[in-house]
């Protein structure tokens, strides 16, 4: 693309330097350090380090605990992504349809976006608490002894519910704006052809919404992997013990509590590769999307 531009030699460089400097120091340098130290074994007391090649990686691969965390992360990501996308889609379709109170519903359904994950986690701690929790009472009424922080599945349940709670609003905002950008004539024509609301949604609305849904799918996977850190940390009360945790949380625990810098760096690199794959996937989808719209 050719655009009218200014001719200037030093000014653009000067404009770029602050951003580039910060990125170089706080992004490329640490990222490079992570890759590098993933090939070394650090002494936990800080007495030098030793090159060990791929050992940190094979250690991860053979660690049953790491695999357990990886499996939990997968299940957790699937549940959070599935529930928050499904719920948001349902609510967005309904909010797009109703006439009365549409603005009120929109506000009520989106504002939780601004609540910080650990704040949500703290409220979750109260709701799911063994002594005082309202949800614990609900379970007790149903004849189930719910124990946050003691039972693996019970803790996982709380993590998923709180994460879905906080992630639904973003999805709702995107779905609603996607629905509102569908041209009205298309929907009216579909209404004449097909009176069944559900089939109309399946055949017309959903395909038109698919790009938004794909975009959100990636966003949600990234969210479930990384941004849930605050929720997990508060719900396990900084005490992972036998509780479920995600891969990112394990990077943190191994790096800062276990002082296993090499192992933690190898985990970082594994996550980096995972994110790279996701991003390449996303870019390809975006390219296709530009093609069609």
């Amino acid at each position: 693309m050719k655009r009218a531009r200014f001719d200037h030699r030093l000014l653009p460089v000067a404009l770029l330097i602050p951003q580039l400097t910060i990125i170089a120091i706080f992004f490329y340098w640490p990222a490079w350090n992570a890759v590098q130290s993933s090939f070394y074994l650090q002494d936990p007391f800080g007495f030098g380090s030793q090159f060990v090649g791929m050992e940190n990686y094979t250690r991860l691969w053979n660690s049953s605990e790491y695999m357990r965390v990886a499996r939990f992360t997968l299940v957790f990501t699937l549940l959070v992504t599935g529930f928050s996308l499904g719920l948001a889609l349902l609510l967005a379709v309904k909010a797009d349809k109703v006439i009365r109170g549409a603005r009120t519903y929109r506000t009520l359904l989106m504002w939780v976006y601004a609540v910080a994950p650990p704040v949500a986690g703290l409220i979750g701690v109260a709701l799911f608490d063994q002594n005082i929790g309202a949800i614990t009472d609900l379970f007790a009424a149903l004849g189930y002894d719910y124990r946050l922080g003691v039972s693996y599945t019970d803790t996982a349940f709380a993590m998923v519910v709180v994460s879905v709670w906080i992630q639904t609003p973003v999805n709702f905002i995107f779905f609603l704006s996607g629905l509102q950008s569908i041209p009205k004539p298309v929907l009216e024509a579909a209404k004449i052809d097909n009176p069944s609301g559900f089939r109309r949604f399946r055949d017309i609305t959903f395909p038109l919404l698919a790009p938004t849904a794909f975009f959100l799918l990636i966003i949600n996977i990234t969210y479930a992997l990384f941004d849930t850190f605050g929720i997990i940390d508060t719900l396990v009360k900084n005490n992972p013990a036998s509780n479920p945790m995600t891969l990112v949380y394990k990077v943190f625990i191994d790096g800062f509590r276990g002082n296993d810098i090499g192992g933690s760096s190898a985990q970082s690199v594994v996550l980096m590769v995972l994110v790279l794959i996701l991003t390449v996937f996303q870019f390809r989808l975006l390219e296709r999307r530009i093609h069609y719209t």
Partner: protein
Amino acid sequence: MTATDTAPVSAARPRRRRLKPESLLDHAILICGALFMLTPIYLALTTASHDKVLTQREGLQWDFGSETLTNFNNAMFEPGGFTGDITGATMLMNSFILGVGFAVGKIILSMMAAYAIVYFRLRFATLAFWVIFTTLLLPLEVRIVPSYEVIQSMGLTNSYTGLIVPLLASATGTFFFRQFFLSIPEELVEAARIDGAGPFKFFVDILVPLSRTMIAAIFIIMFVYGWNQYLWPTLITTEEGLFTLVRGIRQIVQAMAEGSEIPDYGRAMALALIAMIPPVAIVVTFQSWFVKGLTESDK
């Protein structure tokens, strides 16, 4: 809120077709969704209005008690933490410094960079573009341990600089502004050049005024993002005087887990509410800008 909002509307137009059963179902679903969103906050509010002993003895309450002022007062002004020199007010101020500092820093850096990339003939423009946009790929959480080591080796722990600047090392803002600048008609540049305006004058007199809405939208998004940061402040600030509200939440949870006394639920919930009020208020007040800024980012 729903009841009071819809009531006057239906009263003003009573004859305007009755609600069909189908749309009744729609409203029921939406109300359930809204309740799912609101109930946790409602319970946080009621808990913040009761004494900790009552909460501990009888569980979370659904009605309001009389301790609201005491709990909020304690959360806001009563010193807490290990050293006892941190109050909610200090944390509130630190949260504002982080939120505003991050948002302003982000806007300035990314507007400059995006301006250079879009409006100048630059030999290494493509390279600069990729160097900047690769940062979109790796969130801070992934490279958290080495990032901490870098900051530590620079002696920036327990400082606002160490808190804010490393968070700026990402391209989201630059990406927003680049997309926006590309959508501005280039005839404007031609016209400005014919009129003899240099790059500086063009930026200040034309581009910045044109970007006003965009700047506001990005400010809101970035402010909320900065305010809600947790992991990074947790690592970087160990001195309590630098804690943000969200960072303070961790301290509360830790005290709850370790303490032998009755956890102060009322105060904890009051602090949680204080931590969520500013970002929620901003998002709700500037809803349309915020939604526009957010949804336009994926194009």
